């Protein structure tokens, strides 16, 4: 049986292995295998359960079926050749397709994977954005306007929130830029675990589709937070929420393992901890948060699922509904920093390049990252003030308000860097400035929310909606767009149209602030969140919010068109169009396979611009490195 195994087993995918060319394109094969697995397991469970009225699906059968579908999908997409066969001692018989097709199959190239993440996150952003447009359309009048029932509207809210949180804001920068640029910025050829990386990406489409399919089982009404005991009364689509978010979390977890191992072990000579680029630091800290909070929430979600399927009673009548809330927010608040830390990383990369000044007080930004990471574990109950006594609020109030201090470090670093500089107002820089502005409003409104008396008044109102959209869209999405404008020339080798970039940025900025600025007011006037029907006196305001939201939607769409045009036929750019210093700019645009002609050797920090000379190193470098000549101040005018 093993006779054909003359070829040597080297663990490499090249040459030696007999090349199985899958008969179907990988995505199609994944769907077929996943579909078959689903059908088999589903009907197997149904045959055992024999539900009344001859139903063909039950919550149990669908859940089991989805488990099988996930495995079938992952094997079909390429896991069969790259994971299962090697697992049984056969060579990995997978030849990665060339050209555009490699984006639609299992890949081990961190740059391909980064692009896969970016495009998927963008697509999901657009889909979930369309859902938001539908919600706003419905809210133009106080009655049901588009959706047939309140449950349908609430399902739309839930799908929108769940996708935006779990499949966009924690995926776009971390999965997209993180995969693409962490190895480049530290001078590595790839991640430590490329195969793991490949499989981790393909969990995302599965998770997204699962959540999108929830209306098939009636949708779900709990929003992204899945509160009990509401979840117990939600339609059966709730199980897709648990399964989908679980799958997306698994992807974040595997990415986190990869990022941590890569940063620790694959830094090029001279990329000391003290010189590590701020974006990589941000990714590292984010990955640590992911590493210990994602498994926790994943387990919680399984418990929630069991509450529906078995049924156990962890969070229901006999259990503790508040345990769900605590478990959710123990993860949920760190999650908001998982969203924001990478965005700050982008701020700190973009600012010195366009201010042409050395990054100011770099070490304080790093201290801020780490203190935030630690403190974010101590504030979760500020989401639960309505469920506790006054005295219990005080520690959470205190910690939440304290966390704005290390957050403030980011602003000091940003302001210090821009102080008396001659800023080049390019699109990425403009977007970072806008992100700074928006996040200031978002963060300060958070301090208000953390204040017990205020919170009790505006909790669960549009004030909260405005707060987190200011932080997530205003902070993270603006930074993501800045990253796109900043790095897309590196990824594609094509410049983006700056004029349209600026027009779009301004349009988004206006649309965004008009939409969500008004939501603060609507919240204070008594507009509750997650409701399809509202009192008539709020109609005027809601109409204007909706109109602004449509402007915002159009501006986003227009930005995507600009990206698309640049990708296809933008002007060619060289290796370093922005005249930046981090390592990704030291190689061609787009970077060749394995990134660098030869592994770079770094002798100075990455942020020494202008005549100020380099900032002092954060840590005393190792002796071997200290022997290098000190960095001469670079003469870039600034």
């Amino acid at each position, binding site marked *: 049986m093993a006779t054909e195994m003359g070829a040597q087993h080297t663990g490499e995918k090249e040459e030696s292995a007999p090349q199985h060319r899958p008969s179907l394109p990988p995505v199609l094969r994944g769907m077929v295998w996943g579909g078959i697995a689903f059908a088999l397991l589903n009907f197997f469970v149904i045959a055992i359960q024999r539900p009344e009225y001859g139903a063909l699906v039950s919550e149990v059968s669908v859940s089991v079926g989805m488990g099988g579908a996930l495995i079938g999908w992952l094997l079909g997409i390429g896991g069969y050749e790259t994971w299962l066969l090697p697992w049984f*001692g*056969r060579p990995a018989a997978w030849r990665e397709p060339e050209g555009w097709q490699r984006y639609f199959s299992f890949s081990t190239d961190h740059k391909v994977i980064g692009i896969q993440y970016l495009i998927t996150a963008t697509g999901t952003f657009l889909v979930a954005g369309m859902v938001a447009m539908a919600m706003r359309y419905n809210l133009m009048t106080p009655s049901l306007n588009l959706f047939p029932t309140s449950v349908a509207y609430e399902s739309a809210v839930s799908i929108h929130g769940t996708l935006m949180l779990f499949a966009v804001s924690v995926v776009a920068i971390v999965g997209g830029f993180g995969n693409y640029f962490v190895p480049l910025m530290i001078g590595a050829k790839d991640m430590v675990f490329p195969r793991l990386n490949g499989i981790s990406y393909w969990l995302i489409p599965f998770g997204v589709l699962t959540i999108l399919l929830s209306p098939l089982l009636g949708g779900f009404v709990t929003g992204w937070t899945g509160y009990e005991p509401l979840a117990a009364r939600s339609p059966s689509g709730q199980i897709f929420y648990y399964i989908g978010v679980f799958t997306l979390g698994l992807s974040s977890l595997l990415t986190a393992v990869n990022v941590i191992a890569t940063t620790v072990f694959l830094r090029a000579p001279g990329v000391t901890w003290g010189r590590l680029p701020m974006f990589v630091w941000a990714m590292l800290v984010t990955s640590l948060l992911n590493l210990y909070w994602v498994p926790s929430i994943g*387990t919680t979600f399984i418990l929630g699922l069991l509450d529906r399927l078995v*049924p156990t009673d*962890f969070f229901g009548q*006999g259990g503790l509904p508040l345990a769900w809330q605590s478990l959710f927010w123990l993860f949920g608040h760190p999650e908001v920093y998982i969203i924001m830390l990478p965005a700050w990383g982008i701020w700190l990369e973009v600012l010195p390049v366009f201010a042409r000044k050395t990054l100011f007080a770099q070490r304080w930004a790093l201290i801020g990252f780490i203190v935030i990471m630690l403190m974010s574990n101590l504030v979760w109950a500020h989401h639960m003030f309505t469920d506790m006594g006054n005295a219990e609020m005080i520690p959470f109030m205190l910690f939440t308000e304290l966390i704005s201090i290390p957050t403030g470090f980011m602003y000091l670093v940003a302001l210090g860097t821009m102080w008396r500089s001659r800023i080049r107002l390019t699109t990425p820089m403009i977007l970072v400035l806008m992100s700074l502005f928006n996040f200031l409003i978002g963060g300060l409104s958070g301090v208000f929310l953390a204040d017990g008396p205020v919170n009790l008044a505006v909790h669960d109102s549009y004030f909260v909606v405005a707060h987190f959209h200011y932080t997530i869209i205003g902070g993270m999405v603006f930074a993501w767009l800045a990253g796109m404008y900043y790095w897309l020339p590196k990824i594609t080798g094509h410049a983006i149209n700056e004029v349209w970039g600026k027009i779009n940025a301004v349009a988004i900025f206006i649309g965004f602030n008009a939409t969500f600025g008004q939501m603060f007011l609507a919240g204070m006037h008594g507009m509750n969140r997650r409701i399809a029907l509202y009192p008539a006196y709020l109609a005027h305001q809601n109409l204007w919010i909706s109109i602004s939201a449509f402007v915002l939607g159009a501006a986003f769409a227009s930005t995507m068109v600009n990206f698309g045009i640049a990708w296809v036929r933008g002007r060619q750019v060289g290796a370093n169009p922005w005249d930046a210093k981090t390592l990704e700019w030291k190689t061609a645009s787009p970077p060749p396979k394995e990134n660098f002609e030869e592994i770079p050797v770094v002798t100075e920090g990455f942020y020494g611009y202008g005549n100020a000379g380099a900032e002092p190193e954060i840590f005393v470098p190792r002796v071997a490195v200290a022997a290098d000549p000190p960095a001469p101040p670079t003469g870039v005018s600034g």
Partner: protein
Amino acid sequence: MASARISNETSVHAAEALTPEQVRMYAAGFWIFMVSEAIIFITLFGVRFLLAGTTVLPTNRIIPIATTVLLLASGYTSSVSSRAAAQGENVRLRQYVRLTSLLAFLSLISVAIGWATAGLDPAKQYGGIFYTIIGYHAFHELVGLFLFVSLLIRTRRIAYTPQNHLAVQGTVWFWEFLIVVWILAYIILYFI
């Protein structure tokens, strides 16, 4: 005989050569991942105390003893197999991996029996968390068993070397982690 099988095999190849630096890197990556595995059980144990306090309801107490013994025995055999791999003794490695798989399989059977005869109500707090923790652990054991069996099949084609037997080490580490978790779960579910 295992040895005969191995020598007849013309296609056994040494595992990919790794530098000590790479070995450290992959091993560290493995333990980074295991942090997340530990968190899963920490969460579950936390929920046990949160929901059921320190309640212990009477259940079948004989079977878990058998499970514990089987698991401890498999922990011993697995560590022997790891040492064999470290010395490049692939014959002994195969013997002990086979033995470990057998013990692991038996322990899973005992878990299944214990599960079926526990007689608790899953809709009550203690019962719910009882079945959940044991079930989670059993699922991980199933994965461990899969790892051992696939390792056994792999050793037909791959000879592990003192320099690179990470696949063996990883499997054994995972298994030993599960044994530690089992002991904690045993104490937490049956005694506290």
